[in-house]
């Protein structure tokens, strides 16, 4: 982030002596707290069109999966129409997909369940491998890709992944359970996160549970015990619902 000194661009006024020995990264701060206009790093809303990470077949598979994890009903549209697959796609195309913030130095050794994920694949790699393995499994068992299965069959497969009955051919350090957990977690993130990330279209999930979203001041309601909150949800970039 750039800390540019605020300059008074006026007649009869001027900037103070710079207080930042600013380098490209890393600063010496002394004398005054840094400030600049337009400071901050607001989140970038995703472009909702197209796929940045998934190949078309992968995208269709993920759309089918999220539609079973979060089926459409009177409470909300399904995972696909809520944009969960778009959300996952954008996440995998970015730093989450690359595991940029994680410790990825070797050696990679098999770990105990208390030691967390010890595989060498970042989430992007895990999806590529997992989705392919999923279709391998369904082709073996049902003679079809996952997308072509009936809804009940898809549910059956997902339940099998969740419960541990089905074991996909993955990779040492990356189990079927871990694959399912990853997909489930990302789907839920997509469903419940702020719509700017591509999911939760129309704040559907927030309306479903009654979460007011990006509001920041509840001093006028905290004393109203057991009284429903009267205002609808608001997202970071959007208008009120």
């Amino acid at each position, binding site marked *: 982030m750039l800390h540019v000194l605020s300059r008074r661009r006026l007649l009869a006024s001027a900037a103070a002596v710079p207080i930042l020995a600013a380098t490209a990264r890393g600063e010496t701060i*002394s004398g005054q707290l840094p400030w600049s206009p337009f400071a901050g790093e607001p*989140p970038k809303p995703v472009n909702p069109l197209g796929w940045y990470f998934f190949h078309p077949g992968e995208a269709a598979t993920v759309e089918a999966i999220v539609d079973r994890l979060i089926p459409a009903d009177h409470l909300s549209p399904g995972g696909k129409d809520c944009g969960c697959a778009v959300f996952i796609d954008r996440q995998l195309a970015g730093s989450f997909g690359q595991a940029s913030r994680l410790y990825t*130095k070797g050696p990679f050794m098999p770990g105990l369940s208390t030691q967390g994920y010890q595989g060498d694949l970042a989430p992007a790699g895990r999806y590529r491998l997992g989705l392919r393995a999923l279709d391998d499994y369904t082709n073996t068992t049902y003679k079809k890709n996952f997308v072509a299965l009936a809804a009940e069959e898809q549910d059956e497969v997902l339940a099998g992944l969740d419960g541990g009955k089905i074991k996909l051919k993955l990779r040492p350090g990356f189990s079927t359970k871990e694959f399912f957990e990853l997909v489930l977690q990302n789907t839920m993130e997509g469903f419940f996160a702020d719509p700017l990330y591509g999911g939760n279209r129309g704040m559907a999930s927030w309306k479903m549970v009654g979460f007011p979203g990006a509001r920041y001041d509840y001093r006028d309601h905290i004393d109203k015990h057991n009284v429903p909150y009267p205002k609808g949800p608001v997202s970071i970039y959007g208008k009120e619902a």
Partner: protein
Amino acid sequence: MARLLPKKDAVIIGLGWTGSILAQQLTDAGLNVVAIERGPWRDTATDFNIGYMQDELRFAIRKDLFLQPAVEAMTMRNSLSQTALPMRDYGSFLPGNGVGGAGVHWNGHTWRFWDSDFEIKTHLTKRYGAGKIKDLQLQDWGVSWSEIEPSFDKFEYLGGISGKAGNLKGQIQPGGNPFESPRARDYPNPPMRMPYASALFADKMKELGFHPFPLPSANLSQAYVNPLGVRMGQCSYCGFCERFACGNYSKASAQTTILPVLVKKPNFEARTECEVLKINLTADGKHARSVTYLDAHGVEVEQPGDMVLVCAYGLMNVRMMLLSKIGAPYDPVSGKGVVGRNYCYQTSAGARLLFEDKHFNPFIGAGSLGQTIDDFNGDAFDHSKLDFVGGAGISCTVTNGRPISNRPTAPGTPRWGAKWKQATAEGYQNAMGFGSQGSSYPVRENYLDLDPTYTDRHGRPLLRVTFDFPDNDIAMSNYLSDQMEKMLKPFNAKYSAVSRLRKGWNSVPYQSTHNTGGAVMGGDPKTSAVNKYLQSWDVPNVFVIGASAFAHNAGMNPTGTVGALAFWAAEAITTKYIKNPGALVPA
């Protein structure tokens, strides 16, 4: 060849809570101070934007403000018989990063450990006999309640802590904590306003004969001007508190309480995005000369100082001592050595209740908003007939209703599909909970050292955490779970469940970022790494300030006690040490 800079009076490693308090006190005493911080500069004005702070995915799930494991990870194992592997992502605990450290995104619970904590071995031996604690490595801290109490007061007034005193100079006050140790004066701000769940909890606890009181909170109940003249705002119960920075100056942090005054001083300088690699000692190993750090361009720089204050967070403090060879590393097999000894954590369990047709409005919350009882904490109750020592506070806090993580359903509900949806829509407004946060007592085999295999991005060995819950603590926690089960009845919930702690600490699910010990304070250099003033026994111009100094962890959040120790150490440095540099306590 490192670039050599002009000497400073004091070099502070890390500019979080402790670094800021020490810098403020030392610069007031006229010292020339530089604070070297690995992470970035952060401030409300430039980074905690009230328009985009409300982003659960970014800050709570992707952990934007926290330390990235790519920068520094740690390895873990439960016991000596296991091989430690890296926590490739942090889970169980989430260290902070940047100026302000975890003090930027903490919950804000601000406790004082009890007088019995500072003299725990003496106290428990006297009450129950030495046999009761023979399997635990409990030890006195080397400092007494009357010595440390004024420092708690200073930290609470610095931060504008909102609460209700329970014991004023020995007089028990209604509405406060009757079990707390005597305080000179009340909190600087009144308690926060309570949400439905916490108010309900307090009512039921009173019915059961317990003593609920409001959590002492660094989320301010009203606007405030602290003793430095720095102003803070009023908490708006936004529900984006822990894991998030505060957008309206109402959560106490170095930024909101100290930095506006500190940064203006001509004798203070902060250097950010500079990582200290080690402290350099003289050839005899008895004196620190300088620190070596990598600046943001990766250039190696040597910063000499007359004293070095290690304020990098408890775990990193210990690692810095080990890497710099300050103090003898602890060996759990022989029990000898001190650096890494008495590592402790936190021992917790919880109750979940689900109702029908309620409106708990869980999104109206703050990090330290709630009611709590200490009737089962520490040694507040008689353990004579019990097979453990220690206890837990039981709290009903309402911190958030952020739906990626908080969407409770009845036990047995599937985790996806149509039934999941129905249960989630029904459960969101109908759930509340309370939990026990219990003491964590030291045992010989829980400790910290340097990992033999894994290294960081600069090639230095990672810290290795060897920890499991001791049998004593499991017994304590299960006893607390028993008590919580008894407490469920008056609530008359539709579903309820109480969790029970088991052996095998799992590093994956989040539990607590209360890592304590490893460079403990004490009266005996054979069992402590620093003396009662947090001065290294081995290198007298090095002070190590943080929860690393805790000889054990109590059933309370550590920050209040960490803040007090920072003021306590600062007082020792400015009133005793700089007049007469050298060991303040004969070894």
